[in-house]
């Protein structure tokens, strides 16, 4: 070989060597560059605003790629690890929690948080062994001594994790742990905010609930949703020491044979619901969370809230019950009577048939006048006690007026109801309270005598009226001849009242129908205002005949289709005097006075006498208000019928000027009660075009239109 050839071979060799050196240098440079930036890259990835799960998945992927690992996994938890992010594991073979890791990994600390080495030396758990990994790096994720989990990287190639990579992984592990802690804190905060929001909504929801059952359901559902546990039940203590199941949820919610025994058995929690003075109930929870858990704090809060809500519901129920009762006798009151009667008619009482018994103390006004009001009150209580004592458990007793009581007796025939009523009457008559005390009783049977509430009450009322007229201290059935005769005479125009009614009907049939409706409402208002029975009868008569005087008004005025002149209006204004005069002719003095005054106003602007305030009898003030309301809700040729709401508004607006405020208040409550119940319908708005008689020429104001609503 020549020298030149030697040189060439040598140079070629050197070239190859230089190329190899260059490659090695490039390789080292590449690795150095990567290592210099790996931590920064991981931090940049952790800072991306992704969902927590996505962040963990991406972190596992990127760290695995940056370290050329075939498998990367993030296992979160303290004692029990759970796989939260991974790269390279078979999705069908993911390890279930708790994920096993070598014992030496759990012993890693903040100062020595990384262990790298060959898989055969460090050992790999079964879930990782199947990937034929040759080198692994375990990194404990710790922040401020708090272990948050473990990261593992594994390489299948024979490329060990060197010392400097271990140092890098330590720093990266700390950064990942910090990011996890931050995200967990954020998550916890968001969860708490969401929980607080739900609790806030629950508080508002509970604040709006007054029904005890609804409150119980709401509490149970909320506890079941917010607090881990297999079953929950809420009990209420209506009476001290007596817990009654209110609501429950869960599989073994009734596992309460130990109820009241403290301490509760293992696996059960008994949380009393208490206010300052008493226990109002208890919450029972099976498999409750531990006392130091966040869930237990929530439970405690819910229990406090439940205590307040149940206490409020109990108070409301008691108050409501008290409101339904008469404070003097303790019997259910007038409102409860109507509610229960309506409910019974709608839903059906046991046995379906029932008897409505009206009981009225005879000559009660005289008792008050002669013996004083305390004696009157005592009489009322004695009668109430007698009624309570003499009725069956299924019967309901009410005090519906001053000295008037009612009893709803399900499942009795007419004769049985009479026997029961007679027993009551006799028991009252036997009372020895130092004064004469008897009652008259009227009975109407549903559905034999009437199928609707109003007609049923009216039937019993008429029977009671007949009992009174027949000499008092007796019982009369609505189906008896006397009552039917009374009805027939009144309806057909026989007798003095019937004759007058017939006179009114002849003049204007619609006005007569309107008057019957006015009478029904007026009597109810009068009863509520405590008017005694005899006076109520006068009010009923006056209401039914209040337009009797129109019989003396010429038809051309009454039926005039256009506005009245002032002179014509003056003629119409004479109808109260005419009506009163007719009634006096038939010796109906009290009704006559009521009729005479029924267009007087409390502010003195009415007619015919311009009386004001108490100068006008209470009955006349009642009639004036009721007549005004009913007239407003009827069609008139010069205006359509007002809606009920508008008519009530008008009543309210003119309360204190045209109408007696006390009467208006009671009338409004009566109307509201009647409007709430479907049976309380007004008679169909009747066109009174035929009786169109006048238009008040004086004014077109609302007050004037109201005033002229019924001339």
């Amino acid at each position, binding site marked *: 070989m020549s020298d030149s050839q030697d040189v060439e071979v040598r140079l070629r060799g050197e070239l190859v060597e230089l190329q190899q050196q260059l490659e090695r240098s490039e390789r080292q440079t590449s690795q150095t560059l990567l290592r210099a930036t790996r931590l920064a890259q991981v931090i940049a990835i952790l800072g991306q605003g992704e969902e927590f799960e996505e962040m963990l998945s991406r972190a596992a992927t990127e760290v695995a790629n940056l370290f050329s690992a075939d498998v990367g996994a993030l296992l979160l938890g303290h004692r029990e690890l759970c796989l939260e992010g991974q790269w390279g594991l078979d999705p069908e073979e993911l390890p279930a929690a708790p994920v096993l890791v070598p014992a030496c990994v759990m012993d890693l600390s903040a100062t020595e948080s990384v262990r790298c080495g060959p898989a055969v030396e460090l050992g790999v758990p079964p879930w990782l062994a199947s990937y034929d990994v040759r080198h692994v790096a375990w990194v404990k994720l710790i922040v401020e001594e708090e272990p948050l989990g473990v990261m593992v990287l594994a390489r*299948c*190639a024979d490329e060990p994790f060197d010392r400097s990579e271990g140092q890098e992984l330590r720093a990266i592990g700390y950064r990942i742990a910090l990011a996890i802690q931050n995200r967990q804190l954020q998550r916890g905060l968001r969860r708490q905010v969401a929980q607080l929001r739900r609790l806030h909504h629950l508080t508002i929801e509970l604040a709006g609930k007054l029904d005890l059952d609804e409150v119980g359901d709401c509490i149970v559902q909320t506890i079941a949703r917010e607090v881990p546990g297999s079953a929950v039940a809420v009990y209420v203590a209506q009476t001290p020491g007596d817990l009654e199941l209110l609501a429950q949820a869960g599989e073994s919610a009734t596992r309460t044979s130990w109820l009241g025994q403290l301490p509760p058995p293992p696996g059960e929690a008994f949380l009393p619901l208490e206010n300052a003075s008493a226990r109002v109930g208890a919450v029972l929870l099976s498999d409750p969370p531990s006392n130091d858990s966040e869930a237990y704090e929530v439970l405690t809060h819910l229990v406090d809230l439940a205590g307040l809500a149940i206490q409020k519901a109990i108070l409301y129920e008691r108050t409501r019950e008290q409101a339904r009762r008469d404070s003097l006798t303790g019997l259910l009151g007038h409102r409860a009577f109507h509610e229960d009667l309506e409910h019974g008619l709608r839903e059906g009482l046991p046995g379906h048939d029932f008897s409505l018994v009206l009981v009225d103390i005879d000559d009660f006004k005289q008792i008050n006048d002669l013996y004083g009001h305390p004696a009157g009150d005592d009489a009322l209580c004695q009668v109430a006690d007698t009624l309570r004592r003499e009725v069956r458990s299924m019967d309901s007793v009410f005090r519906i007026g001053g000295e008037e009581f009612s009893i709803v007796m399900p499942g009795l025939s007419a004769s049985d109801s009479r026997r029961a009523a007679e027993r009551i009457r006799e028991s009252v008559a036997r009372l020895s309270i130092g004064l004469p005390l008897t009652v008259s009783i009227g009975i109407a049977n549903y559905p034999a005598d009437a199928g609707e509430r109003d007609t049923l009450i009216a039937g019993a009322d008429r029977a009671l009226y007949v009992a009174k007229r027949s000499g008092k201290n007796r019982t009369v059935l609505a189906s008896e001849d006397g009552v039917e005769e009374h009805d027939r005479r009144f309806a057909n125009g026989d007798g003095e009242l019937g004759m007058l009614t017939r006179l009114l009907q002849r003049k204007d049939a619609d006005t007569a129908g309107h008057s019957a409706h006015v009478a029904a409402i007026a009597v109810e208002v009068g009863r509520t205002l405590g008017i005694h029975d005899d006076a109520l009868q006068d009010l009923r008569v006056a209401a039914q005949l209040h337009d009797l005087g129109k019989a003396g008004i010429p038809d051309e005025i009454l039926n005039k289709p256009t506005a009245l002149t002032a002179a014509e209006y003056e003629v119409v204004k004479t109808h109260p005097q005419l009506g009163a005069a007719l009634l006096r002719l038939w010796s109906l003095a009290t009704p006559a006075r009521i009729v005479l005054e029924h267009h007087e106003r409390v502010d003195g602007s009415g007619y015919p006498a311009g009386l004001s305030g108490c100068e006008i009898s209470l009955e006349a003030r009642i009639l004036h208000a009721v007549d005004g309301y009913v007239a407003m809700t009827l069609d008139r040729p010069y205006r359509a019928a007002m809606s009920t709401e508008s008519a009530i508004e008008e009543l309210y607006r003119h309360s204190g000027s045209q109408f007696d405020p006390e009467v208006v208040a009671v009338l409004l409550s009566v109307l509201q009660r009647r409007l709430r119940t479907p049976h309380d319908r007004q008679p169909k708005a009747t066109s009174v075009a035929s009786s169109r008689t006048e238009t008040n020429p004086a004014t077109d104001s609302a007050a004037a239109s109201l005033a002229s609503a019924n001339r």
Partner: protein
Amino acid sequence: MARLPSTETEAQPIVDPMRPRFGVGSSCMSSRESGREAVRSALCGRRAAPGDLVVLFASADADEVAELHAGAVEEAGDAQVVGCTGDGVFTQDAMVPQGCAAAYLPAEDACFGVAYAEPEDEDLVGAARRAAELARRRAGAGFEHSVLMVLTPGRIGDQREVVRGAYQVTGARVPIVGCAAGTGPQLLDTHLFVEGRTLPRAVVAVWINSRRPLGVGVRHGWRPLGRPLLVTRAEGNMIYELDGRPALEVYLAERCAEIEIDREALSGKLMDRPLGLPNSSGRYDVRHILGEQDGGMRMFGYVPEQSVVQVMAGDASQLLGGARQAAVEAAAQLERAPRGSLVFSCAARVPVLGDRLGEEAREIFRALHGAPLCGLFTFGEFARVTGSTGFHNATVSILSL
């Protein structure tokens, strides 16, 4: 069709008409008959059986791609046909700028599960996962060694997401290989061939279970040039800043080039100097520059913030060396001489290789001991055997059977 120069080391594959063997064929036409001809050549007189696979690569600018595919399907008979378009195709014998090439993979000691999924709401991860899951299920069980081949449209989004989805199914045990379909220099639409359909937007998965080991190799041959640059602002495939300055300005200064910023042609002008990201194996993951946006650079693939990049350079010899190393790497994973290979070579290598383009297939052919090969020029390559994200630019990726 350009006949490749023969070399003294070229091995002649022995075709036994009685036994199904890996075979390749090509056609320089672009018609229904072209597809038939390529498959006919690959079958080499044999008859495909049910369960066999025919891989069809067609040039993106071939006329009537669907017709070409239909011809291949007709000729393949009972075999399934999968494939995609590329920026030119090749076999060990021929470089086919316009036409198609086919490889016949008999199910002699392997089974193939083919499936595809179309991305819903741009969800590439989900599409890749669904396609891979279905392909795995269709491949069945029974053989020890597996590889997932993935074919995707060239410009469908972040191809790294495809690897993420596929990796969720393969895990670390099963290598991934494949490519994003090539578009041709005119950036034409790409097409995927699967289940008799020619689809523009689908992720195609071929799960291969084999009695014998399979080899996957990937290398590029590019070398770093110049100083390291820190990616100080990036998001997804966009590099906005390098060293705290507008990325494109820094890049151009680094390569000492004065290139007129022409958005349409920028990609082609910068193809010779991609960026490289160092990886932990001491090599570089190459990312080509696709375009400019507000002074930043849109890259062909994800570049993480706070990473370091270097401008890369390469000549034909270096790139051919890279191809050879990829083949050696793939062959090293086999227990015996390879029966044949599928080659996915980046289209960005074509201008650098220039006149020596045909040598790339010859280098691979030699390194694979003369086993037949069928390949195409791609818009990105998939190859993940160990410790890599699996999506590459500017590489040669090889699947050897």
